[in-house]
């Protein structure tokens, strides 16, 4: 078999033992890698109905088909577990050097079971696995942890995924960090913390076997050339944060906890402003010729010397959505999240919920007492210092508010509403417990159902249905009977990239067109050059449907019902007052209609369950047996 070793490494933290599982080639043809393979491993290994923070949960890591090969932007891997934030599948993508060294270690995937009694780090040194006391690493931030392990061995080829203090303290919005990249959303860091797993290091020294090296080199060269051209120029020069001004002008920029879609100071937190005033340099993941990471640097003032990469999703959450127009405070808050191991999006949206709650009188200054501010502080929108302080409080569960917000918006609002008789759920901006991304879906009607039905909650990376809305392919303010198919189609399109995985920023570099016709034939050629298979357009297309289906199946097994595909209260009941998207909501009737259309397009029942025949058609007979209807 080319492209794979056929071996999955299992590690049991409780018994401190390991074993090897072999998988047949047909299994790899079904699940490929990345989020699909990680989710399939989660399906096979996670105890159904388990508490996500109990030993029954399992960490599943799946390599990338193109990692360690010349294929541009293929240095990525997937991670899955049962999410402590949503109770459903938590699937994340990360990338860079860890993905490459995982591939070179010849493990197609790593599954981590059980729970350690004491803090532990695991070292996978090719075939050899060792367990090490990690008490010396506890309390270190993510970068310090990676450096400490690399320094101990004196080998920079050893790459490490780890958690920061947020994961150690079981914050449900904690992530996992490696090489400056994050396996984010859905609280993977808390799962690691619950197992007392501080770090997983890998050294891979072997080669990667590919079926047709000459063809792969030529294909990769052509893509690399295109990736240096205009199709990626925006990412290379400005990065994703250039979307701040776009979204603001379209009335879609979440502002003050999604109360508004325009921010009066958008220029001051824009990618353009960052480029002109704070950009230190650009950096790239391993195996990437694009280099989209814009490194922002605060050189002086109270937030100096903060430096880190600034993305749109981090920026909206920790600027406009908190009403903060001080770019330096935003950079500092983002850097804090990355250091401490917090998901920037969930952190920003959770803080904005707290700020709105403060302004509405639910919280007082005293509720924000913490070690640094024993008298508390006024957590109003626009208070950059408060926003920065709250990132630290959440990671350390410092004080009442730090402990509360570490639970994420859904749990925090439920707890406060129960304790205080309030209705903060009306502005708890999450779906299935996952905090929302930087697009207000009240005026993106196709995207609204993509978000509501998302298997990991409100996520723009898994549903790409904002694309036709924003680009004007459809009328984003209205609905029609095409939207179910469109939501399905865009979601499965994204799932192909997340499964190979390839960074989506390469999508125009195959032929100049980002659609299926422009990309799938070239992707089939890449797959075949690595594996020797005979994938075609249809086989590539099926990757996305299967990837999405295994995640949906996981959720059904965990008790999902149609009612879980919801939108936050605000998006149903409170239209924005100003901007290009003023006056719009997604009514409850509209959402139910869109869900009907979407389930029908997926070939599911009206209640959103998957017929056995559908699963068998996808080759997922064992899944059909368990959850098919």
């Amino acid at each position, binding site marked *: 078999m080319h492209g794979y070793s056929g071996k999955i490494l299992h590690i049991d933290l409780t018994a401190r033992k390991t074993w090897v599982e072999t998988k047949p080639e047909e299994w790899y043809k079904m699940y490929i890698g990345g989020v699909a393979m990680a989710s399939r491993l989660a399906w096979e290994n996670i105890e159904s109905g388990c508490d996500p923070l109990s030993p029954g949960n399992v960490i599943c890591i799946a390599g990338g088909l193109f990692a360690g090969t010349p294929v541009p932007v293929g240095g990525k891997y997937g991670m899955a577990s049962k999410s402590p934030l949503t109770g459903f599948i938590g699937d994340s993508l990360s990338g860079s050097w860890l993905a490459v060294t995982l591939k070179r270690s010849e493990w197609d995937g790593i599954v981590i079971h059980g729970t350690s009694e004491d803090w532990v780090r695991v070292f996978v040194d090719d075939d050899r696995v060792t367990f090490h006391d990690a008490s010396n690493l506890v309390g270190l931030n993510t970068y310090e942890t990676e450096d400490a392990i690399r320094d101990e061995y004196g080998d920079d080829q050893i790459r490490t995924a780890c958690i920061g203090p947020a994961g150690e303290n079981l914050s449900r919005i904690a992530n996992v960090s490696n090489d400056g990249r994050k396996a984010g959303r859905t609280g993977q860091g808390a799962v690691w913390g619950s197992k007392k797993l501080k770090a997983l290091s890998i050294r891979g020294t072997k080669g990667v076997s590919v079926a047709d090296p000459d063809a792969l080199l030529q294909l990769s060269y052509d893509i690399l050339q295109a990736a240096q051209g205009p199709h990626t120029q*925006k990412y290379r*020069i400005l990065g994703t944060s250039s979307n701040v*001004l776009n979204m603001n002008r379209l009335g879609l920029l979440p502002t003050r906890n999604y109360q508004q879609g325009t921010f009066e100071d958008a220029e001051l937190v824009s990618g353009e402003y960052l*480029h002109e005033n704070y950009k230190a340099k650009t950096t790239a993941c391993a195996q990437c010729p694009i280099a989209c990471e814009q490194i922002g640097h605060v050189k002086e003032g109270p937030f100096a010397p903060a430096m880190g990469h600034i993305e749109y999703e981090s920026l909206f959450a920790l600027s406009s959505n908190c009403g903060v127009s001080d770019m330096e405070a935003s950079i500092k808050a983002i850097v804090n999240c990355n250091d401490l191991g917090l998901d920037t999006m969930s952190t920003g949206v959770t803080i904005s919920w707290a700020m709105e709650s403060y302004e509405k009188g639910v919280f007082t200054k005293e509720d924000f007492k913490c070690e640094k501010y024993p008298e508390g502080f006024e957590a109003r929108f626009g208070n950059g210092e408060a926003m920065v302080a709250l990132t630290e409080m959440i990671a350390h569960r410092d004080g009442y508010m730090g402990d509360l917000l570490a639970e994420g918006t859904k749990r925090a609002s439920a707890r406060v509403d129960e304790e205080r008789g309030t209705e903060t759920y009306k502005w708890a901006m999450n779906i299935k417990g996952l905090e929302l991304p930087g697009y207000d879906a009240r005026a993106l009607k196709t995207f609204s159902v993509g978000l509501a039905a998302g298997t990991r909650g409100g996520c723009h990376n898994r549903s790409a249905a904002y694309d036709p809305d924003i680009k004007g392919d459809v009328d984003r303010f209205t609905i029609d009977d095409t939207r179910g198919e469109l939501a399905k189609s865009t979601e499965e399109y994204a799932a192909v990239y997340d499964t190979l995985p390839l960074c989506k920023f390469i999508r125009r570099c195959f032929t100049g067109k980002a659609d299926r016709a422009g990309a799938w034939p070239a992707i089939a050629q890449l797959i075949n050059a690595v594996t020797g298979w005979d994938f075609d357009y249809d086989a590539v297309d099926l990757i996305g449907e299967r990837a999405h289906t295994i995640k949906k199946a996981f959720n059904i097994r965990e008790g999902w019902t149609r009612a879980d595909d919801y939108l936050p209260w605000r998006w149903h009941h409170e239209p924005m007052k100003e901007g290009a998207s003023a006056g719009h909501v997604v009514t409850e009737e509209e959402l139910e209609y869109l869900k009907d259309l979407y389930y029908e397009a997926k070939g599911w029942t009206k209640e959103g369950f998957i017929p056995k025949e559908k699963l068998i058609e996808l080759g997922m007979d064992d899944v059909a047996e368990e959850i098919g209807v």
Partner: protein
Amino acid sequence: MRIQLELFGLARIAAGTKELALELEEGTAFRDIVRLLSARYPAMIGNVIQPDGETLQPPNIFNLNTRRMIQADQMDECPNDGDRIVLMSMSAGG
């Protein structure tokens, strides 16, 4: 007629300005505005505008009055006096 043209992203960097007030003859099409930009700001060619000097390089796109995106096959349509156009690079992610 008078048109306000806002520039975001790479277009702003290439032009060195955030906004232009354009005095145009009646019947000027969106494609003509691209030609005008090519002539005035050659640095846009290759990144924002295709080498032909009259076609926007995807995902750059005109937004008209915050409500409507002008698609590639609509570039021969004409804006009206007082319209506000934004030239933006419209691809999401991050």
